[in-house]
């Protein structure tokens, strides 16, 4: 018997479940939609979601119902719903499974959210690389439209929510909600200065809500089983419901595990993901995607909920847990992530654009045993001048691998530098090459 009840992965874990409309309906799919549209007032749907305590599953963890509540009440023009399916945070691969294996669960959530906020058009912004996912979603939208669950006059209620798939084209930054909107408008994906927030000035400058795939997929369950049920799961009152945790790295069984929020990292890694892949002990882990600072074995008993992980000095983020075994160089690991951020910096803000280049060059130099002690000050200084000084949260994210590895494993940096000094390899930096 499974230890915990599955919610989001329940259908797809059943043998033979294909994710077709017929399969989804057999499991009670679209009941929430039938029982809500035209029967419960949109504002009451929002209140229900607020009561459930549902928080965004994309990374920031903002309360979903509160986000919806920011839309102007008396605005008569069009409003938009965007489903953020631009899953790009290294270490995260849950939305892909939710879309490819149970697309109708997401679509039902999208229609419910569209109804609650009064949006007649919804766009699923899916990362461009997920071609299969976009095809599966398009087929599912076709099925749902034919069955009257999506489109004009849904099930004869007079309510319209139409849904389209919009493919991104390879840019991590488009997971940031305002960059996503820019991209959806056909522009470069550069985050917007906030305020104004998308709730009032979003897609085409109209009131807009952007919600993550996993967030929306929770809605049918909240509406059919009630907010009290949802709020009883996890670590109430602030971290309710389950999370689909993505485990990667040096574990026996990497993959997606849906568990109530508040389980410990120890339980996730050693019970569910099968523990370490070899006899090497755990050395480090990232609890919430590449943007979350590294933690150490001392943090294994931290609970995986928003508050506990934050209190431990990191963040729950996207729920992507990456595990590293003893023997992994932390300088190398931070450099790998830094190369990612360097590649993905959109270039809008100078501290991030120039700083990421400087950071990656300094890190490469240290890793190549050409570093000097003063490089460590340079790294710290750069990080401090990037974090909090950019338009979006990317700046804070990109410094976290270096800041956290410097905090916990400074000696590894020092060792590399001492080796460089001993080998007398220090020489002026050669002309850097940008990739």
């Amino acid at each position: 018997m499974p230890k915990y009840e599955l919610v989001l992965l329940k259908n797809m874990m059943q043998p033979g479940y294909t994710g077709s409309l017929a399969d989804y309906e057999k499991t009670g799919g679209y009941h929430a939609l039938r029982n809500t549209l035209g029967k419960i007032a949109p504002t009451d749907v929002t209140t229900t979601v607020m009561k459930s305590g549902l928080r965004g599953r994309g990374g920031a963890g903002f309360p979903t119902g509160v986000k919806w509540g920011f839309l102007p009440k008396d605005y008569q023009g069009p409003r938009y719903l965007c489903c953020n399916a631009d899953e790009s945070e290294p270490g995260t691969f849950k939305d892909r499974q939710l879309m490819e294996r149970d697309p109708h669960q997401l679509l039902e959530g999208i229609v419910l959210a569209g109804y609650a906020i009064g949006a007649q058009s919804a766009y699923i912004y899916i990362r461009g690389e997920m071609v299969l996912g976009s095809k599966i979603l398009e087929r599912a939208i076709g099925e749902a439209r034919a069955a009257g669950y999506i489109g004009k006059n849904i099930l004869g209620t007079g309510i319209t929510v139409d849904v389209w798939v919009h493919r991104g084209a390879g840019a991590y930054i488009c997971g940031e909600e305002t960059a996503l909107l820019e991209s959806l408008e056909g522009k470069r994906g550069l985050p917007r200065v906030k305020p104004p927030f998308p709730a009032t000035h979003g897609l085409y400058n109209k009131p807009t809500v952007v919600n993550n795939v996993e967030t929306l997929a929770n809605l049918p369950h909240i509406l059919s089983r009630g907010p009290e049920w949802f709020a009883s799961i996890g670590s109430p009152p602030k971290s309710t419901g389950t999370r689909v945790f993505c485990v990667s790295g040096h574990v026996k069984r990497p993959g997606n595990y849906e568990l109530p929020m508040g389980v410990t990292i120890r339980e996730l890694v050693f019970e569910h993901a099968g523990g370490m892949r070899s006899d090497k002990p755990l050395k480090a882990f990232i609890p919430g995607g590449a943007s979350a600072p590294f933690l150490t074995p001392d943090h294994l008993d931290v609970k995986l909920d928003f508050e506990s992980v934050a209190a431990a000095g990191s963040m729950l983020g996207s729920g992507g847990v990456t595990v590293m075994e003893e023997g992994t160089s932390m300088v190398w690991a931070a450099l790998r992530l830094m190369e990612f951020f360097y590649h993905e910096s959109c270039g809008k803000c100078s501290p991030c654009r120039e700083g990421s280049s400087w950071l990656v060059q300094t890190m490469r130099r240290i890793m190549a045993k050409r570093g000097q002690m003063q490089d460590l000050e340079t790294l710290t200084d750069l990080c401090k001048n990037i974090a909090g000084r950019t338009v979006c949260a990317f700046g804070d994210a990109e410094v976290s691998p270096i800041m956290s590895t410097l905090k916990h494993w400074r000696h590894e940096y020092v060792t590399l530098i001492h080796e460089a000094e001993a080998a007398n390899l220090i020489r002026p930096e050669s002309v850097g090459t940008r990739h």
Partner: protein
Amino acid sequence: MGMCSVNARSLEHPGRHLGEEKWGEKVLKEKYGKEIEEILSRYPVKRSALIPLLYLAQREHGYITEAAMTEIAGLLKLTPPQVYETATFYTMLNLKKVGTHHIQVCKSLMCALVGSDTVIGWIKTKLGIAPGETTADGLFTLTAVECLAACGTAPMMQINDDYYERLTEEKVDKILVDLRTAGTSPLKSGPYMWPESTR
């Protein structure tokens, strides 16, 4: 905020407004007229159709030509630089020719922890090309890319539209042979589910 930032002066300037009539390039419109109409119908503002149309152009030529960008500008009432500025931002939009099979190996930390550098090494040896290069026969291009959101099944790579996961040397060999001989490989991933049935 304006939907499109063309100012009046640029529209009046004779050299800037490159409409479809003036260029007479209607390759995409003639071939994909219906599909283009359907794409445009999804959005209240034309420019939103830009990335979908760039994909269409890429499907046609394998990469996005300047002529295609000019035609798309005409279709969406944009200037060619507006199309160009978007096209150059996104890594999946190829502005130059790539091989028939574009191999993109993920090199981000999560894949690197379980051997993506080794995978890149195998492919380099087997095809005789480094990342960024194309084989002489134009069949394969190798690129090392950042995270493709398949960290639970690392190491992995994407070839054109398909993911290939949990790579081993044997598997990579078979995939390359399949692609060379049949143009497709049964080893590509289906809908993602991992772990399959541990519960």
